[in-house]
């Protein structure tokens, strides 16, 4: 059970991603007697748990939310905040552009720190801490860009980075003596050994993989699917369901006007069942096979063609005919006997 703040205690809100750095930054503050509470923002693109929860092959792996795990290790409260809608503008119109894929890392960091500042003010906290390490990441943690986060988030000198504070100008909490600057760290660069040594010093074990990405937007395959979605809809907009579905199944776009999402195994099949009322679906009736969703505006001929593709991924792939049930998103149903598409006819460029 987390401690309540004492009247004389200074209070810091810590951005907790679930990774090692934010865990260590919060721990350093706790060691200095600061009351710390964690904040974790959910953008919809966070890697945490999603596909692990869906795919059956992962069901034997322990499932945990690393931000919650971090908070529990630290003995602090964690506030998980849904920023899905607000985040759209960050992703669609990043002032500082994208990284290697569709990751707007610098704008994302600025946005999250500004939201943390808002939370700090609303909850009468004194300053903000992050697990940033100077030079560790190419976009959001470059030495010349750390001041941009400070300035554009509006956090100014209320943003303390305990892991690299000694490399930076003293912040208000340091100047006022709320924290002892001498006990802060001077980590820099991509070498993770200092963090791992500090984790060992604090007896943290089984923490999330160091330097592991926590956002699907840094993943090329995921980013390609997002760009395809925007292109097909002629609009850079999305809903939560759209970005969830980009994580699930095989995505094939045989024509610009529709896309097939074909489940790969039972776990995904069950997950896609939840979308049957929202999408046109293709179910294999004569054999065991995947559930497929059809996103877009397919004609009847398109659906027959798509059914042949779906049948290709069923156990009837070598059969002469496979019976499929197509259910339009309007509820209209049709049964088709189709010839499963041979692998050689499935074009590579259909795969998104």
């Amino acid at each position: 059970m987390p401690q309540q703040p004492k009247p004389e205690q200074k209070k810091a809100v810590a951005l907790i991603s679930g990774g090692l750095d934010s865990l260590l930054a919060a721990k350093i503050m706790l060691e200095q007697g600061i009351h710390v509470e964690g904040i974790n923002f959910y953008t919809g693109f966070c890697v945490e748990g999603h596909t692990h929860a869906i795919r059956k092959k992962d069901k034997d792996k322990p499932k945990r939310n690393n931000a919650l795990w971090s908070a529990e290790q630290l003995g602090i409260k964690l506030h998980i905040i849904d920023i899905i809608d607000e985040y759209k503008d960050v992703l669609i119109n990043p002032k500082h552009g994208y990284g290697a894929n569709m990751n707007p890392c610098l704008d994302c960091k600025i946005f999250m720190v500004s939201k943390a500042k808002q939370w700090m003010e609303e909850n009468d906290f004194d300053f903000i801490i992050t697990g940033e390490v100077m030079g560790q990441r190419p976009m959001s943690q470059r030495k010349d860009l750390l001041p941009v986060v400070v300035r554009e988030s509006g956090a100014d000198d209320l943003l303390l980075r305990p892991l690299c504070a000694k490399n930076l100008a003293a912040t208000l909490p340091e100047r006022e003596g709320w924290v002892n600057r001498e006990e802060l760290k001077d980590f820099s660069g991509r070498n993770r050994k200092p963090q791992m040594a500090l984790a060992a010093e604090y007896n943290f074990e089984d923490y999330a993989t160091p330097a592991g990405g926590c956002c699907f937007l840094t993943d090329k395959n995921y980013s390609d699917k997002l760009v395809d979605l925007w292109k097909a809809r002629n609009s850079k907009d999305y809903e939560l369901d759209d970005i969830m579905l980009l994580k699930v199944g095989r995505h094939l776009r045989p024509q610009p006007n529709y896309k097939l999402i074909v489940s790969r195994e039972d776990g995904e099949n069950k997950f896609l069942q939840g979308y049957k009322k929202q999408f046109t679906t293709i179910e294999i009736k004569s054999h065991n096979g995947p559930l497929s969703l059809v996103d877009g505006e397919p004609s009847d001929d398109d659906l027959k063609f798509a059914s042949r593709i779906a049948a290709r991924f069923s156990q009837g792939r070598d059969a002469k005919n496979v019976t499929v049930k197509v259910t339009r998103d309007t509820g209209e149903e049709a049964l088709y006997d189709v010839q499963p598409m041979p692998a050689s006819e499935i074009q590579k460029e259909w795969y998104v």
Partner: protein
Amino acid sequence: MSHFTLDARRTLCPMPVIKTQNKIAELEPGDTLEVTCTDPGALNDIPAWCRINGHTITSSREQDDEVIIVIQVN
């Protein structure tokens, strides 16, 4: 003391936790909340959230691919 229910089915981690967190913010100590989820990750995440926020899990079970967790608000 009242009993409430929350449907968090077809949402994935951490949405069941966020929904639980936001619902509990509206409740009074002593109330109970029954959360139904389809993400098996909720079996770990909701109890973890309850532990760090001082609420008590009174039961949790899996039934027909659903996870049902009952929480007593403290």
